[in-house]
């Protein structure tokens, strides 16, 4: 029947990512393109397989088509398994009616049956909206050796920013003594990364209790963690060092993309000992033309570059025609930048066209913000798009929707 697994991962991928506006119009946040050939969810998925965790439940809710299609049978991450592997877990209709996932804890609660099949000792809770490389297995080792009921991965943040996070106050052994959710006056700089390892039985009990508590938010940060702490359960912080970025906003998504650039990039994706896997499409190598100039950028398969690309991240199949300039920008799959067009300090989603001599965005120094163009849009020739524009349909003059 089902093979017992030591640890099962549950990946929360239902988030809408409303602060990414145009980019999440039709896709869930975890399926947003990142770093040329990846999607955000590739990072936790690759971390799982690199950490030896081969059973991953992916909880989806908002706009799941692209995400479901992308994950498929899990083959790109080596998660197509006879036993375990990846499993998409959408909300479902039960005997007592249908429920959307009301919160992060409720989402796991509704899928306790999935977890029980594998009879795991531990459950790893992850979220699908962070960019980082982390060995969950060493976190699991720390969890086991401390004998904790729950271990929470934490990151050192500057005190000035601590009020944006859930903050853990610990004693010298790493035991959590206090939890402050977005505190006004934080007394610690250990921020929760939203990565938890629970002893399965403890998790089950608290999820069931939480479900039976009227008025609960059914949320890990707001309910489960504080309740466990109040009950005096043994909870430890697991310090994480390294690159970690929440890409929930346009500016943090842009920054994280730019963190891949430079001779000593803040985040290294060329590391062969911790590879990031992604779904590949059968595209030819990219071609750099006779008059092209490419510097400080990353480029992927299927691109055709005839113009100038500077300090930018280009996804597969992007075309930059002769005389076009792309600078400080993120261009997603199969978008075409026509000749003479200028794209500056922008994020342009896939399958769009920036027509001849159109101008999108402004120099990073003078811009009011990052210009964002949604997917499947055509910016007409000679049109100028303001630096902080957020365009997701044809309501703006000079922008039309490309019909497929």
């Amino acid at each position, binding site marked *: 029947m089902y093979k017992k697994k030591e640890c099962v991962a549950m990946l929360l991928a239902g988030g809408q990512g409303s602060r990414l506006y145009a980019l999440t119009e039709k896709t869930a946040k975890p399926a947003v393109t990142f770093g040329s050939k990846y999607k955000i969810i590739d990072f936790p998925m690759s971390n799982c397989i690199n950490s030896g965790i081969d059973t991953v439940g992916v909880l989806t809710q908002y706009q799941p088509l692209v995400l479901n299609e992308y994950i498929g049978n899990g083959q790109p991450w080596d998660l197509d398994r006879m036993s375990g592997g990846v499993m998409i877990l959408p909300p479902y209709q039960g005997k007592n009616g249908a429920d959307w996932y009301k919160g992060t804890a409720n989402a796991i609660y509704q899928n306790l049956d999935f977890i029980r099949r594998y009879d795991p000792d531990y459950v790893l809770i992850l979220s699908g909206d962070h960019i980082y490389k982390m060995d969950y297995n060493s976190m699991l080792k720390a969890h086991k050796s401390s004998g904790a009921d729950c271990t929470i991965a934490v990151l050192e943040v500057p005190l000035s920013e601590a009020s944006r996070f859930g903050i853990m106050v610990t004693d010298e052994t790493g035991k959590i003594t206090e939890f402050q959710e977005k505190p006004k006056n934080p007394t610690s700089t250990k921020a929760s990364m939203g990565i938890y390892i629970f002893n399965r039985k403890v998790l089950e009990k608290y999820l069931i209790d939480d479900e039976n508590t009227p008025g609960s938010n059914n949320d890990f940060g707001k309910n489960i963690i504080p309740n466990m702490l109040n009950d005096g359960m043994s909870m430890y912080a697991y310090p994480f060092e390294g690159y970690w970025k929440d890409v929930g906003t346009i500016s943090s998504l842009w920054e994280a993309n730019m963190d891949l650039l430079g*001779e000593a990039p803040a985040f290294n994706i060329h590391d062969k000992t911790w590879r*990031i896997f992604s779904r*590949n499409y059968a595209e030819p190598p*990219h*071609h750099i033309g006779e008059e092209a100039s*490419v510097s*400080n950028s*990353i480029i992927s*398969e299927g691109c055709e570059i005839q113009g100038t690309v500077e300090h930018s991240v280009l996804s597969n199949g992007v075309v930059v025609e002769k005389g076009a300039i792309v600078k400080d920008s993120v261009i997603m799959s199969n978008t075409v930048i026509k000749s003479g067009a200028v794209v500056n300090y922008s994020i342009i989603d896939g399958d769009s066209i920036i027509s001849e001599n159109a101008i999108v965005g402004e120099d990073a120094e003078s811009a009011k913000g990052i210009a964002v163009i949604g997917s499947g849009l055509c910016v007409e020739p000679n049109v100028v798009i303001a630096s902080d524009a957020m365009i997701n349909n044809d309501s703006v003059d000079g922008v039309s929707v490309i019909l497929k």
Partner: protein
Amino acid sequence: MSAAGIIFSNIHDNNIPELTRNRTMASVPFGCRYRLIDFTLSNMVNSNINNISVITHYNYQSLMDHIGSGKDWDLARRSGGIKILPPFITAYANSSNSLYSTRLEALKSVFSSISKIPDDYVVLSDCDVICNVDLKDMIRNHIENGADITIAVKKVNLTKEKAKINVLIDSDENGRVTDVKAGLTNFEGEADINLNIMVMHRRYLQEIVLDAIAHNYTSLTKDILLKNINRNVYRTYRYDGYFACISSSQDYYASSMELINDSDVRKQLFGVKNRPIYTKVRNSAPTYYSPDAKVKNSLIADGCQIFGEVENSIIFRGTKIGKGTVVKNCILFQDTFTGENVKLNCVIADKNVVIRDNKNLSGDETLPFYLSKGKMI
């Protein structure tokens, strides 16, 4: 209508001895991220041929490594899929233990496998046909015309040297083959050349192989095609797209350079709608260009890190071009590492070559300098 595919993986190995020392012709790297067999495999898969046998001969480890389970071509199937047929040698000394050297002998050696093909039609193809051809249309054409064998041809202008190494096919105005000529020493001009892709009915293939076993025939062209040319109906199928077949090291180099210099070639090979070319996925990171990188007119695969200058070159996956290094007119295979201030011109570097700082290597377009697999300089 269903069709099976048979691919010969070692045909023409001695055309490019440097590149086939450690591998089959089928697994010779080409075009930044492909192996030659990818074109044939993709053509078959794109034409709904999902039952493919690859006949191997010797040094086929690299080919097995490349193909794996076949999943990258969607050929990891419950029934059918891809199957490698290594040479069949018995433990007992007998006369059949010699390795084959022609297509017909190869087919004879895998007769038991051929006799079990469940599909109606069979497409036979060499592994070094670089093209993007619609085999579905070719099979349809074969059935409509009621031919015994349909042979893909392309009209080309031949020089004397090229005429000598190609098989020329004459046909009448109805497309029926009237003559097959190989090794002509004194021909130049326009002619139809054999693309080494053939369609026939499974039963016809079984018949000719049985016939060949009975009569100890060895050559498909001489003993089968020419002998039966008046009795059976052999027809041509004209293909007009890009086609290259690697007949020498210079050919290999020239065909590679064509990929860079001619956007039409790239379009005809890679840009055909619904007919992509598949290859083994390596999960490389996207390619990084440093602030000082200068790249012109080059094809570059994923997973590279470019700190120097690259011009008119083909750079395979995972290659690193060091600071101050200048690479011109080169073909650098997978995971080539160049140090700083290296100068390379007309160099073909096989897999995993390491070129240390300040080295200066140059070949010529007519005789590229070849560095063998794993070489360190």
